[in-house]
């Protein structure tokens, strides 16, 4: 009996030591259920879903615009839109536009932009930059000064500083020009066959000419916002 116990102890001790000494014993912390990297064709559809939701959701941009322009009203007896009709604009008024745009749409496009630095994904990178400019433009339209240059760095900067609205518009115009140039450069690059978006591009189905037109439209809108303000609009009007 004593022998059996003795052997058991030895055996267990050996098992313990063996398992402890193995180099990769502790390498079990990787998530087997969720990927750590994803190609942009799986990220873009989600971004476009977010983009449509920022505008069409309940109390999204569409509601705000129509309420303030008095295009929409509410039926008598309902008390759903009191803040809108009494202009009770507090820090929580339509905060879903701000929160949802930064936390979903912009986060997604910024992530696509960061993961598509290689020439192979030149088109995706340009699309991500154009969509970022689209959303940042609307945020400046709605709020004026917003966090921009330090924004979207997640854990690296949990409290980004606010930037001047005019500087943001100007930088967005530069970014849009760069995105258009990048689409043209990707098409002209004979060394690398770039991935062309397909069904995952729910907006233009991978038609990059349409994306260039869309980028120019965003610039035009931002230029229109600054008309009669004495701004130098040459960046906005070059294409």
């Amino acid at each position, binding site marked *: 009996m004593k022998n059996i116990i003795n052997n058991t102890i030895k055996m267990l*001790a050996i098992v313990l030591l063996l398992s402890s000494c193995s180099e990769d*014993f502790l390498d*079990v912390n990787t998530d087997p259920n*969720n990927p*750590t990297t994803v190609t942009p064709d*799986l990220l873009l559809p*989600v971004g476009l879903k977010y983009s449509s939701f920022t505008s069409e959701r309940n109390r999204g941009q569409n509601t705000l615009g129509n309420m303030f322009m008095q295009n929409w009203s509410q039926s008598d007896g309902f008390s759903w839109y*009191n803040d809108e009709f009494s202009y009770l604009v507090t820090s929580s008024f339509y905060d879903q536009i701000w929160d949802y745009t930064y*936390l979903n749409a912009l986060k997604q496009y910024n992530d696509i932009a960061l993961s598509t630095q290689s020439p192979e994904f030149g088109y995706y990178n340009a699309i991500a930059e154009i969509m970022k400019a689209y959303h940042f433009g609307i945020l400046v339209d709605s709020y004026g000064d917003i966090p921009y240059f330090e924004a979207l760095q997640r*854990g690296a900067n949990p409290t980004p500083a606010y930037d001047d609205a005019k500087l943001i518009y100007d930088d967005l115009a530069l970014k849009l020009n760069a995105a258009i140039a990048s689409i043209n450069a990707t098409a002209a690059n004979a060394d690398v066959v770039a991935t062309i978006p397909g069904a995952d591009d729910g907006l233009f189905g991978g038609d990059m000419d349409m994306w260039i037109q869309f980028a120019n439209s965003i610039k035009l809108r931002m230029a229109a916002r600054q008309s009669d303000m004495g701004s130098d609009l040459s960046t906005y009007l070059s294409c």
Partner: protein
Amino acid sequence: MNTAVNIPLSSYSDWDNPLSYGYADNYFNAYYQNPYWGIGTNRNIDSSNRLTANVSASWDVKDWLNLTTRFGINNVNGRGKNWRAAQAYDPVLQPAHQAVSSFVTDSEFTSSQYTLDAIATARFDITEDIDVIAIGGATNWTSNASSSSINVQNLSIPNFYDVSNGTGIPIVGRSDTKERNYAFFADLTFGYKDFLYLNLSGRNDWTSTLPKDQQSYFYPAGGLSFVASEAFPTLTDGALSYAKFTLSNSTVYNDLSAKELNEVYVQSGGFPFGDLNGFTLQGTAIDSGIVKEKLNTTEIGADLTFFDNRLTVSASYYVTKITDNLTSAVPSATSGASGFRFNIGEIESKGYEFTIGGTLLKSDDFSWDANINIAGSEATVISIGDGVTETPVSTSGTVGVYAVVGEVFPQIKATSYVRDPQGRIVVDGTTGNPIQGELKNLGKATPDYTLGFTSSVNYKGFSLATTMDYRTGHVYYAQGSDSMEFTGRSVASASANREDFVLPNSVIETSPGVFVENTNLTVTDGRQDYWNNTYNEIKENYVRDATAFKIREIALNYTLPSSFLDKTPLSAVRLGLIARNPLTVLPEENRFSDPEFNNSSGNAIGIGGYFQSPPTSSYGFNINLEF
């Protein structure tokens, strides 16, 4: 919610009869379903099996040396099924109701933990006066857990709940988690003449859930205890019968949960959409430099007993320094992260505990034992991070729990009234409504102290045991009363007969810094809108004094004398009456809820919620038979 208290819900139990008022189309509430509909058509069924096994072997190698190994398994697996029936609504009778869709979910899980220990214990005397207990050992802990679920929606055949019956793409989920940890440890205790003891111990852990360079950590501890009544026996000549003093310091670390370290992509809701799949980066950002949390505690204590152990007094004081406190906070939305897991800097917590107890009265068949306990602790935030003076731990935007540098943790902050220098409420010069102010510190969520009292009276076969406590000095946010404002069920909203009124003690700012007393300007729409949209937005109104006195339990038991049972097969019979939570006394300003019931069990204490079952009082009767 949205159900008036004067409506007897039980009269709506006939939920599936189209001619009844309980039927979906006829039910009085246009926004919420008849609860009897839920009882009749929703189910959530769970079952689980558990297996625990332990094997241990112990061998006394020599009379001073013992070797022990233990192996333990804890295995749980289970399955669940959850379903809901569809419900359509008549668009004329119930225009506000959205149709309810049907679904069925099948889920399974399995989880197992293995523990393996090997310990060697040696006891020997170094000299006649000094003895030593030395312990050395190793331990290993492994945890495996898996779960999966299938959810299908819009069932084709009503009331047939199987995943084959769904339409559209099923939503499937799967999670596998592995965690490993091992450690070596040693513990030395020196004893000198049975009155002075020195304990030194060290332990090195390796854990799988931390970054590579953080996986190994050593924690030392040391303690000294001195039994004065043994060292100087003359001390016990008087009232004192025993005296012990202790001093200790220990360091421990907390690590992360499994799979928390790496940011991953998750399938986005609504995908796959046809042939398209879609992923998005997880909402919570993990600090790339995240480290383990360190807790260092120094404690001094004294235990004294008097009058042949009739009276016991014990007291202790401790200081815990938490460095690199692992916290989940809410960053600015503009950072693109909805949560942030990082180390918060430094928190120092100081606390004390004092207990006095004993046998107050004692005779042959009567005794009364009582015990009073007072404890308090206070954690102060010393630093958070570079230039950061406060961080929300949990917030809705208008009310939240915060860590503020230099303040006690956790602090409740909420939107407030704007007040003039005299503390009067500033109202808008046109509407008469108070102006909504910034987020303001409204107090701490932990009590100054907790006072506990237990008593036990025994007389012959009867015993009466009572437990009660009192805590004060803290505040909490009453989420329930907040939501009652919207539904028009709050005491406040009826306080002015639902009419316009002049807000008492209010002022109007006529020019910057000039405040004129408001004597005639009434609030706007005191019937409804003022309460819904102005009063309800100033969350200061719902941060209340969390003081509470509670009688937790009163139990009266009677044990039948054994002479009664001589001729029966029974060996003991006990009868008992028990009352749990029979009495809660709350301050006048807190008329709604028990402040002890929190929304969250994490760091964010102080948010009293309606997501948890309210506290209940219960009364019971026990019969206990032994054969």
